[in-house]
């Protein structure tokens, strides 16, 4: 499943060329009520090299997101459970509907999206250099990343502490890899995939996709997000016998009480 390294020899160059020629990309946009973005996003995705299909997974939009996506030639599906937060359910349904070899996930509301975003994410896979790519972009990592995800990763999975933005939702990976892991249902999905794919032995790289102009998450989402991200990491740490459930439970209670700037209005930069 996972290639054991990639050396620069003629045979490998030939294999790499074949991968570039033969592998196709499914671009997946989890979305909800984004009728203003969907047309441009789908059209841009289709312009990227090797894109075979675009999939829009909808979280129960009340606007014309789905209708426009379908008109633009995207495959569409409504996520199987309309739960909040349901990001993981949407990502899972996207992977399950996809038929190409490589999956690329992107936020649909990136205002400066270009085909290069997709190519930068997919290239390490097409070129045989990686099985899973984590995108990062030009901005300081967010509060949940710095206060919750990174400290926990350093503690339990120090080999993953090198990732600048472990919670980034801009990712790419071999489709078959996504079928070997369980998707967290909510905000914990991105860090959960990172840990589980690492554990599977996938070759993971991080790629800078440049400046990303998009709407930031509302502040009220951060506490839930922090809790779910911590939960996703701790459940895996327990599974991998890196901590005991009691300690994890105490830590999670602590995360619930973190002031991310919601109550006091101060927050952190």
């Amino acid at each position, binding site marked *: 499943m996972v290639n054991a390294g990639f050396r620069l020899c003629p045979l490998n160059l030939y294999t790499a060329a074949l991968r570039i020629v033969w592998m196709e990309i499914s671009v997946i946009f989890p979305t909800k009520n984004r009728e203003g973005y969907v047309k441009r996003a789908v059209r841009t995705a289709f312009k990227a090299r090797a894109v075979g299909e675009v999939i829009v*997974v909808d979280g*129960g939009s009340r606007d014309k997101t789905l209708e426009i996506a379908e008109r633009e030639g995207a495959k*569409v*599906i*409504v*996520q*199987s*459970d*309309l739960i909040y937060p349901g990001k993981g359910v949407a990502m*899972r*349904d*996207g*992977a*399950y*509907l996809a038929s190409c070899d490589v999956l690329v996930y992107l936020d649909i509301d990136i205002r400066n999206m270009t085909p290069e975003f997709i190519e930068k994410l997919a290239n390490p896979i097409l070129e045989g250099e990686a099985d899973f790519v984590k995108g990062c972009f030009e901005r300081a990592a967010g509060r949940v990343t710095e206060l919750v995800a990174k400290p926990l990763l350093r503690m339990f999975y120090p080999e993953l502490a090198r990732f600048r933005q472990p919670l980034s939702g801009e990712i790419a990976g071999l489709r*078959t890899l996504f*079928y070997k892991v369980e998707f967290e249902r909510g905000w914990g999905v991105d860090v959960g995939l990172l840990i589980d794919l690492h554990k599977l032995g996938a070759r993971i790289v991080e790629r800078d996709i440049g400046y990303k102009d998009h709407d930031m998450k509302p502040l009220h989402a951060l506490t839930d997000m922090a809790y779910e991200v911590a939960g996703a990491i701790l459940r895996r740490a327990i599974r991998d016998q890196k901590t005991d459930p009691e300690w994890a439970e105490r830590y999670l209670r602590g995360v619930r009480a973190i002031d991310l700037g919601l109550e006091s209005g101060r927050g952190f930069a």
Partner: protein
Amino acid sequence: MRVLLIGGGHSAYFAANAIKDIDPTGKLIIIEFTSEKAEVLSKTFPFAEVLHQEIDEVESYIKTNASILDALIAATESDSLNLRYCKVGRENAIPLIIAILNNPLNYEIFAKEGIRYIINPYSFIPVELSEILGSATNIIYKLPAGGVMLASIKIESEEHMHKLRKELDKSNDISMIFVSRSGEIKNSLSDLDLGGRLYLLGSEKKIKNILKMVGE
């Protein structure tokens, strides 16, 4: 019958038990994606053959066995997978393709792909709420095949009652019963009273026509 049921979750549990009751001597094959669940399922449903398969292997199983299957029921916890498997089943000419939805909002998407039998397990929520909360008109049941419909109409005014009597007098091919406000069950048009409910059973076309004529 030889039925392939894909999925080992909540919907599949009820589907498997129903199939056992409907066709006790038939052959039921259940496909589940995780080995632990497959093991539990084989104990829960000893009458079925339970197979553990990877998500990507199921399509080739369907293709290989399509000629000996009478029905395929896609009942996984993901509508994406259900759609994928239904399409493969249809392309390989399995006579009956049935999807059990997780999210009713996907109904049209499945219908557009040519999936004829789509079960929406949540369809009774609005129906039963309408009856309990006293909605004026309520389509209680629409048969998935055959175009039969059961509708419930609340008698709200003398004029309404008069219109209904007039229309129903002309229709011999609609069955009806009437439940009065006090809960008595009657079967004559002359027994209609205000506040009671009239239940009509007939073809979808005829029932819809009557509802239109009486202004529903």
